[in-house]
C-alpha cells in the first residue's frame, strides 16, 4: 500500500514530465505548502522549485502555508469527486492565513489538474489512489 507521500511523488513525477504542465509551471517558484493529514498518514510538503514540483516527507518549517485535512479529501480531489477549491471547506489552516493560502495553493493548480488527468490515464496512479482511499475510508 503506497503512502500519501509515495502517491503524491508518483503523480508529481508524471506532471513534471508533461509538456503541457511544464509550460504552465514555467514561472512558478518558491511556493511551499505542507499537508498535515488527520488520519494517521505522515505529513507531506509540496514545493514549486523553478517550475517543477518537489514532494517531500514531513512538514517543511519554511512552508508559507500549512493545511490540516483528511487524506481522503485530497484523494477525493485527485479522483475528481470533490471540486479542488472546495478543499478549503474541509481544511484547517495551521500555518498562514486564507490570503496566503489562496496565493500559494493556487500555484498547485497544474499539479492538481495533472493529478486528475493522470488518475484517468495512468492505471498505476489510479490504483494507488483508489487503494489508499479505501484504506483511509476504512473500506
Amino acid at each position, binding site marked *: 500500500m503506497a503512502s500519501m507521500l509515495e502517491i503524491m511523488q508518483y503523480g508529481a513525477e508524471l506532471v513534471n514530465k508533461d509538456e503541457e504542465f511544464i509550460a504552465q*509551471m514555467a514561472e512558478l517558484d518558491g511556493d511551499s505548502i505542507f499537508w498535515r493529514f488527520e488520519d494517521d498518514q505522515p505529513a507531506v510538503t509540496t514545493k514549486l522549485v523553478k517550475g517543477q514540483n518537489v514532494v517531500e516527507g514531513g512538514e517543511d518549517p519554511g512552508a508559507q502555508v500549512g493545511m490540516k485535512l483528511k487524506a481522503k479529501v485530497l484523494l477525493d480531489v485527485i479522483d475528481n469527486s470533490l471540486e479542488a477549491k472546495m478543499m478549503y471547506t474541509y481544511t484547517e489552516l495551521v500555518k498562514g492565513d486564507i490570503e496566503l493560502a489562496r496565493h500559494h495553493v493556487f500555484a498547485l493548480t497544474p499539479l492538481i489538474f495533472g493529478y486528475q488527468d493522470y488518475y484517468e490515464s495512468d492505471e498505476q496512479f489510479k490504483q494507488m489512489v483508489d487503494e489508499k482511499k479505501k484504506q483511509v475510508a476504512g473500506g
Partner: protein
Amino acid sequence: MSEIITDLGFDSKSLWQPKGFEPHPYPESTWPCLKELGLKRLAEIEGEDLTVLQDGVKKPMAVGAFRHFYNDKIEKLAHMWVLISRSIAGGMWMGWPNDDYDFPVLVLAWEESKKRLHIIIDVMPIVDVVEYEWYREKYLDGIEPVYNEYKDLIGSPSTYRWFRAQAGPYLIFDGPSMQRDRALQCEVEYMKYWVKTVQESEPVTDEQYRQYANKRKRTIMAQLRQRDPLGSVMLRTLGPELGRKCCIGYT
C-alpha cells in the same frame, strides 16, 4: 465615427480552446443584451491603462481578454473571458452605477470546466434594503419571477462571509454542473433585467441619500478589491501589474 462599441471583438471560441470540453457560448450569449446601452470603451480607470488587458493576455496559466465600458449612467462595466490552466473557462460581467445613480450592481460569474460549473448571478444592491425597502421594491423585486424560475440552480452558499453580507436577496450561487444551458439562460435573464433597470434609472436627487449610497458602494468595491478570490487568481496568473489592473477594472 461613433464611439459606441457594437462588437465585442471575440466569442467563446476565438481566443482559446480548453482541454477536454467545449465551453458554453458565454460572451456571445450575454453581449447582445447590452447593445441598447450605447456603451463606450473605457481605456483608463484610476490612472491605470486598461488597454493592455483589452489587447489580450497570454501567460503560462492564463490566456484571454478583457473589456471595459461606460456610458452616462454606468461608471464601469467589465467583462472577462479567460482560460485558466487550460482547464477552467472563466467568464465575468460586473457593472457599477456612476455616482449620480443608484441602480444595483450587475454581478455575473461563469466558471466552467469539464466536470463542473460554478456561477454567481446577482443584482447587488448598493444600499441597505431593510433601511431602504423602497430600493428593493424599485430595483430588485422585479427579478423575482426569474429567480423563482431558476432558483433550483442554487447550490451550497459561498464560504466567504463578507460576500454573503454583500449579496442581494435574489442571489443565485453555484451548483448547476449538469444544468449548464439553464444556468447560462439565467445569466442572460438577469443581465436583461439589469439593462432595463439602468435604462429606467433617474439621477439621484436627495443629496444625503446620494452621499450614503456612494459611500456604501465604494465600501463594497474596496472589499471586493481586497478579498475577492478572483483577484488573487488574476494576480497570480497575470502577475502583479496586469493582475492589479484586472482588479481595478471590475471593482
